[in-house]
């Protein structure tokens, strides 16, 4: 499956029309329509009827469509969520491999009923409890549909650990380490984040978001997401390689190709050792840059069409 670009994404209650109807204008790489914590219990059933409309709105902006379901009601949520256009089910509060097995079976059945190519809909397992962290490997390896793995931070996690959220140090350091190692060991994309101090809890802080996105990119992480529209562009920009970086990695690759032609395995370029590891890193960044450009072009085209139709 092609590598997806998920630099920016907004999670929003699917039952709030003012969010959903404007979602396509936000320029997100993906949209995460929520059945879970932002939807009151009394509106869960109603929320399940809104997926087709949400998909139509989100696709106008060229975003990938994700649905966050409730871990407690997968039997009710999955048949409502898996419609053509949805590529990802976000499964929150994952705690056991059995939950993922059940989810996989439900998605398989929903794909069959909806006439969706088998295996299209992937799973993002999100870890939000201590039991989930403890069972990370079993969860992440429970289904071939899982392509992203993250968590171990956030409000649910802080609640289960008995810690406050914004304390000026990384209270989730162990959880991030476990998540990143498990994801890498299984060849999944780790969609967590590096830690940057945040004592405000401001979900719309552009500067903090941009700084975190750039730190993530330098740490080899590629995914973002948030709750506030202010986070979208800082992540689109911060997680996209700069022009200078692209030029730099092109030079590295050209230099390494010369080394290779001479039968050498390493050399020095501008005071830095260049070897196959540096070349691989450069190739990944170049590939990532191209994917970002493709995604940006796709979104721009979709949004232009939508605006033309609305004009």
């Amino acid at each position, binding site marked *: 499956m092609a590598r997806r670009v998920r630099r920016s994404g907004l999670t929003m209650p699917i039952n709030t029309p003012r969010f959903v109807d404007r979602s396509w204008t936000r320029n997100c790489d993906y949209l995460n329509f929520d059945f879970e914590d*932002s939807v009151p219990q009394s509106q869960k059933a109603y929320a399940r009827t809104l997926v087709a409309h949400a998909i139509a709105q989100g696709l106008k902006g060229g975003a990938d469509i994700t649905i966050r379901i409730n871990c407690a009601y997968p039997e009710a949520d999955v048949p409502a969520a898996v419609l053509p256009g949805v590529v990802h089910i976000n499964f929150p509060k994952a705690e056991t491999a059995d939950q993922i097995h059940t989810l996989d079976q439900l998605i398989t059945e929903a794909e069959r009923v909806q006439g969706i190519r088998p295996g299209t809909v992937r799973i993002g397992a999100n870890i939000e409890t201590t039991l989930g962290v403890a069972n990370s490997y079993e969860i992440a390896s429970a289904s071939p549909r899982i392509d992203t793995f993250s968590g171990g931070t956030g409000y649910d996690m802080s609640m289960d650990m008995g810690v406050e959220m914004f304390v000026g140090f990384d209270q989730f350091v162990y959880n991030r380490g476990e998540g990143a190692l498990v994801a890498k060991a299984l060849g999944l994309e780790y969609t967590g984040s590096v830690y940057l101090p945040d004592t405000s809890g401001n979900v719309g802080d552009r500067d903090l978001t941009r700084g975190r996105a750039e730190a993530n990119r330098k740490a080899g992480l590629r995914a973002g997401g948030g709750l506030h529209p202010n986070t979208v562009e800082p992540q689109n920009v911060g997680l996209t390689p700069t022009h200078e970086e692209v030029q730099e990695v092109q030079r590295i690759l050209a230099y390494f190709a010369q080394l290779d032609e001479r039968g050498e395995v390493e050399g020095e370029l501008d005071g830095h050792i260049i070897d196959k590891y540096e070349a691989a890193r450069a190739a990944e960044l170049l590939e990532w840059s191209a994917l970002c450009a493709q995604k940006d072009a796709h979104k721009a085209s979709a949004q232009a069409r939508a605006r033309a139709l609305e004009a």
Partner: protein
Amino acid sequence: MEPFVRRSHLLVSAWDEAQVDMSWQHAADAVILDLTDAVPNLEKPQARANIKAAVPVAARGGAEVFVRINKELAYADIMASAWPGLTGVVLTGAETAADVEEIAMTLAVAEKEHGIANGSLSIIVMLDSGKGVWNIRQIITASSRVCSVGLDEGRLCCHLGIVPTPAFDPFIYAKGRVIIESRAAQRQPVGISHPAGLFPHCDDAEERYRLALRSKNMGFAGVICPDSSWVEPCNRALTPSDERLEFYRETRRLFAEGIARGTAAIPYPGTTMMIDVPVDERARLTLALWERCAARDAEKRAALARLT
């Protein structure tokens, strides 16, 4: 959430009568009478003989009382300690589930012989080896008696060949593992943030509070206090503050209003913070914890009042 409030565990030498006699005066939630490192080998029989009388002394202020036992002398230590009034034992050096099962069986024997309710004595596990830290899940789930788990940082340094320095915490991973595995297994993680676990001497009261608060925000729910100066800051830090109570009461009020309007995503006024289900649940749990802490403090005050 644990069925008990044990923010502070004051460690005193069971061999030091003066320490034992004063142990109840510091408002600790628990007192641990130490039969291990604080007692020379030759004095262990005498210290053991003192335990039966020391338990009610340590409990005068309403504290729960534990005895820290020697793993290799567990039978003698337990049979000398397991009398009515004891809450449990502290076990250091467990490396496998079998180590805990053996202690649990000995506790069962002592309960039967000394007229204590079956299964009532608890175990606090202090891990002191790489093997113990790695096997934590098996160790803490080996018996329902295991109520709490932490690291014996000094011994762990010896085991791993670490020369401790205040400059950095050598146990970031081990502490994270203790916190995650213990909470996942519904046990209480006990511990303190660096450097207090290895360098407990601290003359600055506010620094003690700061370190205790940091421990709480790492995920620890209780602290082993090496001396009485740590008890008050630990009790204070591990109790939700007035400022947090006010914040969380307002959070609950705003969320309830939002639910009544049909939304579960509510902006916190004056900020860009959002209140949703987990934020509200966090508020509910924090308020419940405060009530349990207040009830525990009232119990201790009542115990002191009975003395006068």
